[in-house]
């Protein structure tokens, strides 16, 4: 099983580098002048240019986090914050320039679009190069476009929601994002519309010593539902790349949103991403996350349950190998009665990698009759790796049911012996146990991603076990 999978997938598809050909690449560094120049290049409306400059001021005021992984190697003076590819926005793959199209072909995006997606957005470096959605969704009033188009065509909606869920002063890298954001997707699902087939945006960073700062804004209106998938990857370079995206999700009354992510950045990436959802009455946001890539990741999706009866589920797995420090987790704030949250987080550490589960569950004074249950499991595959669990549980009223459980351990020798007695080699036995460990997460992913995740696990286990 393992062998055939290895034959089917080639790690290199993620690592294929295109030449660093661009239409425009900003000077390295982060200054007022550079921001103004980007704003001009992007033909921002005035309000957006001012927004960027204000965000830059906030960035300069805020300090780096005093906790978590060491990110002192990040020097903004080494990074080009804006790289415009040599391509306009297209709605047909035919029109996308060959080298860029080939990249997405290799990643299987156009094929997945034909088979199992209702719409696709594809970003290359700082700009979206392809966006398309099925005709019937357009007819139902669903909007799925790149963020730049949204700023121009739907200014009222964007002004109302843009960086309101995640305000620029949240933390330093959100402020950075506010100043330099580029690309990303905008989705609006009108009242009562159920989008049965997922939409997917894929983010590819090709340019060395650069950053990607896409902004995703999704509004699922009353009674509507959506499954949105985000994928990301980059080829590996020697110097650090930076990803500081921002995802803002608004889930209205009785609406449902599932947000799935497979993160497979290259191992020179600093992934300092921010994701937040505000959920109204009886709405629900479900997060499904597989985190495999990046050198350092600090990512804690957050659900703010503002409406009575709103719900959230978080299902996530992190897999840290050599040289990786994945500091991931989840935050939830219960602000209304009868709200509920369920967390199922897993991590695997091997080859000196470090996984941290860091979280917050806050049940506020008004969130009477709320429930929260958290389960964390960590697997250590050797004795040179690290696995930390750092959950904060903040309970501020008595009408709650709250429970948190966490486990750390290794694969048991007895289990390995049992599987070997059925003819499996030791490596196969371990791989089977690890895949089984990850299964509750992979089964939540769309089929092709679940396969990709299993393949990634097999790849990560190659050479690590034996």
């Amino acid at each position: 099983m393992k062998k055939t999978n290895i034959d089917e997938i080639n790690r290199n598809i993620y690592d294929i580098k295109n030449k660093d050909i661009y239409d425009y690449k900003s000077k390295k560094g982060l200054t007022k002048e550079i921001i103004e120049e980007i704003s001009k290049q992007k033909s921002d409306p005035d309000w957006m240019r001012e927004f960027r400059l204000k965000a830059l001021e906030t960035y300069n005021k805020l300090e780096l986090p005093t906790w978590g992984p060491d990110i002192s190697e990040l020097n903004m003076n080494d990074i080009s914050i804006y790289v415009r590819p040599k391509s306009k926005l297209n709605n047909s793959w035919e029109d996308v320039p060959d080298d860029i199209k080939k990249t997405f072909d290799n990643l299987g995006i156009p094929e997945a679009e034909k088979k199992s997606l209702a719409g696709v957005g594809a970003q290359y470096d700082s700009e979206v190069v392809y966006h398309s959605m099925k005709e019937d969704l357009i007819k139902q009033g669903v909007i799925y476009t790149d963020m730049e188009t949204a700023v121009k065509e739907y200014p009222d909606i964007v002004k109302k929601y843009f960086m309101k869920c995640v305000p620029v002063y949240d933390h330093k890298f959100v402020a950075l994002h506010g100043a330099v954001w580029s690309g990303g997707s905008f989705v609006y699902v009108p009242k009562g519309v159920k989008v049965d087939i997922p939409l997917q945006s894929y983010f590819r960073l090709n340019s060395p010593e650069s950053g990607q700062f896409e902004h995703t804004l999704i509004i699922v209106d009353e009674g509507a539902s959506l499954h949105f998938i985000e994928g990301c990857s980059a080829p590996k370079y020697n110097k650090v790349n930076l990803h500081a995206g921002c995802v803002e999700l608004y889930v209205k009354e009785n609406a449902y949103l599932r947000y799935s992510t497979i993160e497979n950045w290259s191992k020179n990436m600093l992934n300092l991403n921010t994701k937040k959802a505000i959920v109204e009455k009886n709405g629900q946001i479900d997060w499904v996350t597989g985190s495999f890539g990046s050198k350092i990741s600090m990512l804690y999706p957050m659900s703010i349950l503002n409406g009575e009866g709103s719900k959230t589920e978080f299902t996530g797995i992190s897999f840290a190998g050599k040289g990786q420090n994945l500091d991931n987790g989840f935050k939830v704030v219960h602000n209304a009665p009868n709200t509920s949250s369920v967390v199922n987080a897993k991590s695997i550490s091997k080859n000196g990698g470090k996984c941290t589960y860091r979280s917050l569950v806050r049940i506020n004074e008004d969130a009477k009759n709320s429930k929260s249950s958290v389960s964390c499991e960590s697997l250590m595959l050797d004795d040179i790796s690290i696995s930390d669990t750092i959950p904060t549980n903040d309970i501020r009223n008595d009408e709650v049911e709250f429970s948190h459980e966490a486990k750390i351990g290794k694969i048991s020798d007895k289990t390995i012996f049992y599987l070997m007695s059925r003819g499996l080699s030791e490596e196969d036995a371990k791989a089977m146990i690890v895949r089984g460990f990850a299964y509750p997460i992979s089964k939540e992913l769309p089929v092709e991603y679940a396969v990709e995740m299993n393949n990634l696990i097999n790849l990560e286990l190659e050479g690590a076990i034996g």
Partner: protein
Amino acid sequence: MLLEVKDLFVNAGEKEILKGINLKINAGEIHVIMGPNGSGKTTTANAILNNPLYQKKSGEIIFEGENINNLKTDEIARRGIFMSFQLPEEIPGVSVTNFLKYAKGKVTGKPVKIFEFKNELKKYMDELKMNPKNMDRSLNVGFSGGEKKKNEILQLLVLNPKLAILDETDSGLDVDAIKTVSKGIEMFKTNENSVLIITHNTKILHSLKPDYVHVLVDGKIVKTGDASLAKEIEENGYEKYKN
């Protein structure tokens, strides 16, 4: 000769458990090892499968004319020895079907045809009165004691080894379940393959006719006889074999 155990001494950690076991099993035979708790029955099974938790100090295990003392467990399994566990392990996230399909591919060395395989599995599960839903459940996770034991026999039938070692397969089962499990073993048994039953009680022997019965006390086989020996122990216990 299918299996020969010669003067086997085995430790579990510092403790000496087996103190010179000798055993010969020919193709087509059913053997039974009986003995009180702690006499070394489970150790015998684990030593044959080379569980690293047990260390062979001396002696030989010969399977089909070849010394398998130092083969890895999976190599032993692929040569045709199966062990039904007293306490089967739980493997979350791996379904019974997927696991068995994979294991069968490993043991036979041939790709498994899915359709045929599922039919075969279904047939066996019917015979063993197993809930068909268990096919898609995680291996042994949340299974009752009886379900776990039946699942071991299901694996025996699917993997179809040359020698089946059944470690306390009957313990903790009610009368009906013992009948079902015995039926499963009968389905497996042919004139070419062999069974080694390890047990401390004799209920399962009412339906299976052993060719040889060995009494294991304190790490040694103290008596070997035919089926009547099991009957005698059922009546009188192990007292007279203890020192």
